[in-house]
């Protein structure tokens, strides 16, 4: 069975069906989206379990010729439809399917033009699945750009009062990154040769092997004049790709689209944004930046680690100063994704495994957090922290879930957030004695970020949820602030359970990722050092 293709095309098929349905059938749109999400989650879950029986290398491979154009003097344009997953992408795939399901359930608040909404939603779902499965750079790029369009409209049409500004900001930021990605991709295409057919290829796996680069091409390791503005072209390629993905994650200082996008986006779109889209940044850095340019990754690791540390602390501080609950959570996302960057930069198995764990854990937690914000916003259309006091009085069950989500986010052991943070930091600390890429101080500084994390979450709990009940909207709000509904339980209970489950049994994720990451760390290090030596002797930088 072509499981991965089914994952990708199922939502597209559903979107086509939706388009053919009359506007009057609006009631079935959400159930259709939910069903598709559930089916995707089940398929991804089956793949996950299958993979666990033998967690090695790429599996569920699908490879076909897709575009095969004769370009005359340029040679041939060969683009493969090449899908496969490994321990790195499979967990994220499962997370995405799950988060999309939750987002579909959370879409009950969407009233305006449901047909367009769910069509775009399903298109987005397909693109996300594709991004995590594609191993052909061109195919990856197609899916990557395909995400942009529905996301732009989902924010721009169904968002808050300032939605157009936020949507265009999001769009331009991402586009800025991907245009340069396009350049690097084309450059790589003309540098890399398929060792079997001898033709140029977009195959990422071939791009990861130095032997496949034609001599004297732009990105060749063995070229003695691959300099641009007196700088190794491969380094520029790495920087450009890194910026593209760093915008997605996002890191400081490329982050300012995120708070605006979150504040304006409706709840389900916020969930997708934080739960899935940010992870594509982390995934891209591991798979593409580090995979294709290992020597640049090693060369710049200090700076990458530093960016991670600054993101952690800076994000935490601004979350501490935030007055809007959603903005606070957006900045806490920046802080938490900083751990991912730091873990990757450490280039240790602990760090990268921790980074993947952190991505998945954050995917679940941010889904929960944004959903929880949505719960009160839907009731009173306000989410200023200062507008609420003693919310635990009218909404005790809601408060219980908030406590779980907050404590998991601040890294309470036994819940998922802790494992990711702890292992990215262990990796960052270990780096100094294993590969000497990061100074030990990075891990210690990042740990300070954890402390500030505890501060803003606890402060918010104390200000919003505890104390005597007092609301900005007085009596009117007292009536509106009812405890959780059945639908809300359906969303929150699985999220809370997964958080606890991952915190108690981290092997659920590590068993799948460990082999892949051990091999990946080893290869990145060996290739990186070899490439770096060759380039340094040839280019004399």
């Amino acid at each position, binding site marked *: 069975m072509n499981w991965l293709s089914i994952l990708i095309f199922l939502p597209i098929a559903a979107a086509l069906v939706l388009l053919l349905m009359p506007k009057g059938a609006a009631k079935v749109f959400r159930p259709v989206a939910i069903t598709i999400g559930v089916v995707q989650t089940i398929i991804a879950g089956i793949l996950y379990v299958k993979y666990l029986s033998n967690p090695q290398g790429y599996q569920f491979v699908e490879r076909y010729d897709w575009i095969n154009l004769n370009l005359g003097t340029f040679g041939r344009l060969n683009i493969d439809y090449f899908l496969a997953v490994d321990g790195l992408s499979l967990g994220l795939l499962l997370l995405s399917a799950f988060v999309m399901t939750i987002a579909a359930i959370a879409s009950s608040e969407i009233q305006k033009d449901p047909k367009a909404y769910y069509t775009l939603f399903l298109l987005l779902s397909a693109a996300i699945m594709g991004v995590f499965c594609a191993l052909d750079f061109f195919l990856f790029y197609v899916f990557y750009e395909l995400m942009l369009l529905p996301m732009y409209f989902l924010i721009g049409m169904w968002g808050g009062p300032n939605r157009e500004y936020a949507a265009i900001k999001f769009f331009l930021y991402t586009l800025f990154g991907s245009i340069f990605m396009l350049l690097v991709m084309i450059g790589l295409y003309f540098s890399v040769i398929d060792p079997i057919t001898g033709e140029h290829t977009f195959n990422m796996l071939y791009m990861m092997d130095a032997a496949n680069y034609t001599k004297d091409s732009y990105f060749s390791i063995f070229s003695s004049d691959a300099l641009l503005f007196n700088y190794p072209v491969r380094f520029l390629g790495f920087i450009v790709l890194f910026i593209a993905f760093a915008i997605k994650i996002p890191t400081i*200082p490329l982050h300012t689209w995120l708070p605006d996008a979150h504040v304006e986006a409706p709840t389900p779109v916020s969930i997708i944004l934080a739960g899935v889209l940010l992870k594509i940044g982390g995934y891209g850095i591991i798979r593409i930046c580090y995979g294709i340019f290992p020597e640049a990754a090693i060369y710049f690791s200090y700076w990458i680690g530093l960016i991670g540390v600054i993101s952690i602390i800076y994000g935490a501080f601004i979350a*501490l100063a935030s007055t809007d609950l959603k903005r606070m959570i957006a900045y806490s996302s920046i802080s938490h994704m900083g751990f991912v960057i730091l873990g990757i930069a450490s280039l*240790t198995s602990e760090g990268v495994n921790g980074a993947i764990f952190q991505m998945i854990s954050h995917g679940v937690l941010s889904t929960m957090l944004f959903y929880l914000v949505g719960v009160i916003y839907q009731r009173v259309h306000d989410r200023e922290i200062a507008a609420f006091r003693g919310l635990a009085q009218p909404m005790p069950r809601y408060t219980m879930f908030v406590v779980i989500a907050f404590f998991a986010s601040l890294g*309470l052991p036994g819940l998922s957030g802790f494992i990711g943070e702890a292992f990215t930091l262990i990796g960052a600390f270990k780096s100094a004695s294993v590969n000497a890429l990061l100074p*030990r101080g990075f891990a210690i500084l990042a*740990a*300070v970020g954890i402390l500030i994390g505890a501060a803003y979450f606890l402060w918010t709990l104390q200000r919003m949820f505890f104390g005597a009940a007092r609301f900005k909207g007085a009596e009117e709000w007292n009536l509106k602030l009812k405890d959780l509904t059945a639908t809300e339980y359906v969303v929150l209970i699985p999220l809370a359970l997964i958080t606890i489950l991952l915190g108690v*049994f981290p092997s659920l994720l590590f068993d799948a990722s*460990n082999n892949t990451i051990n091999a990946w760390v080893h290869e990145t290090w060996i290739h990186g050092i070899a490439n770096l030596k060759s380039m340094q002797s040839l280019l004399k930088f």
Partner: protein
Amino acid sequence: MNQAITYQVDPLLQVLNVSAMGFIMPLLGFAFLSLFTLKEKTVWYVAISALVASFFSLVVFFKPLVHAHQYFTISWFQIAQSNFQVTLLMDDTCFWVLTMIHLVTLMVVLFSGYYMKAEQRIEKYFAYILLFFTAMVALVMVNNLMVSYIFWELVGFASYALIGFWRTKESAILANRKAFIINRIGDLGFLAAIFILYNQFATLNLQSIEVLVQQSPNNTTSLYWASAAILIAIIAKSAQFPFHVWLPDAMEGPTPVSALIHAATMVIAGVYLLLRISFLFPLEVLLLLKYLSLFSILMGSIFAMVQNDIKKILAYSTISQIGFMLFAISIGNNQLALFHLLTHAFFKAALFLAAGAFIHENKSQDIRLLKGVSKQMPLVFYAYTVASAALIGFPFTAAYLSKEGIVYAAFSQSGFNITNVLLVVSVLLTSIYVSRMWFHLNADKTATKLQSNPLAMLLPILILSIASLFFIFSINPLHLESMWLAIKLDHVPFVFSLGMIAMSLFGVLLVKYTPVILNPNESNRLVLFLQNGAYIDQLYEMVFVKPILKLAAVLKWLDRHVVDALVDGIAKLAITLAKISDWFDRKVIDGFVNLIALIAKRFGDLIRISQTGRVQTYFLLALMMMAILAWFIY
């Protein structure tokens, strides 16, 4: 891992029983109570039966497994090439501490049935107590730093939930936040120690680390850092200077919770961890610990001398007594520290529960307003007196044995010097603040006796005060000759004992005959200074909290007005550039095109002038042209 010293699970079934009943039962109780709303009595019974089941498993299943160095390992997960395991250690120390925790928690839960009667959300209260208990039991049993850290933090979380149990009470929700944050600072130390040790030894199993340390004793630099880091965690959790500030505030929680925090769980966790990990500590770090703990001993007892809130006095007394335990470890005598930990737990729990009874019946925490309790509830007051005697260290109490042991060990180790003299002074100070409290509570002989003394109130207090007496631990009231505790103490010379007792008695007499000590002048600057805990809180607020919030605000401003403004600026720049090029396009490029057209037009217009349609003009022009041509040719 080091197979040589890891016993493979032989009586696996028993281990399963231990965990099933000792661990799972309270955890299930926690889950059950936190999910469902039940009747008050049912909740109480659920909590008690979970604890009794756990106690049962401790005695029946756990006790037979106890041997020195009895380890059980369960593999948890694998990352890189390292196996992370859950290692359980079942030795004597573990067993005695567990017994104490079980007994104290059970008493506290019994007492809560009386103290927390008719409270709202009572099921949550007992749920958190069970979580607290479970986390503490697990923390005592596990012997792997990663797993320890998990339960270390869960203990902190449970205390957060319990201190802030009355969540509409402003002071309580501020106190629990403070407790958690300060413990978080300590946790960073714990995490740092985990990084360092994992980096050095590639394992976090304590017994493996111990073997590795013994094999290659020259890893000292990393041991310095690791032990210093974990020391931060320990003094934060055990409320020692400079991280003690959360403990007096934690008094805002329900009183039985205070008993639990001070006697059986929270603050004990730090001491226990240090007992387990002190093999790591180089002498210099131990010396640092010695001075820190001595400072906390003195500071706690001095602050306790001027407080009027009975719970605050007891809180500062805990800081001081925990200091004694850490002091014992710092001079290399772990057994004495363990012994004092056990004796302290019983009398401190008794004191807190008795104080709870006083507070509950009189609705006041001020010792000057509780002056009639000796007549009001005499039985409780007797128990309170026994526990007070134990806190001072009078003979026939168990704490006499442990405290005297610590002071004597200090003297026999380093002789007559300033630190040891200060230790003796602290014995005097302890006697002073305890008897001050006692005299206040016994001041009014006219109070009326309370009609009813519910068993749920009386029983726990009496049991705990009896457990504070010598015969629980020793058959000899003046020297530890234990029937079961495998602790050996030096024989204390009679003269030394006499000196200690005299010192304590002197303290009592001093309070009785010095009104200034009994009722310190509240307008005195020094008294005010000490009552406010030397304004350390305010200092931290000024030095740490305010600047951090300020920094956060500044960064937020920068984020909005610089980073984001830059992006918006770039966007504006792009728009401006677009407008300029639009202008350029319209005015310059298009203008140029128009100009050319205009020139052509003007030129055309010029030519048009000649097109008059008159033959004479044409003829004239032709003539002129011919004349010019002729001029050119010739």
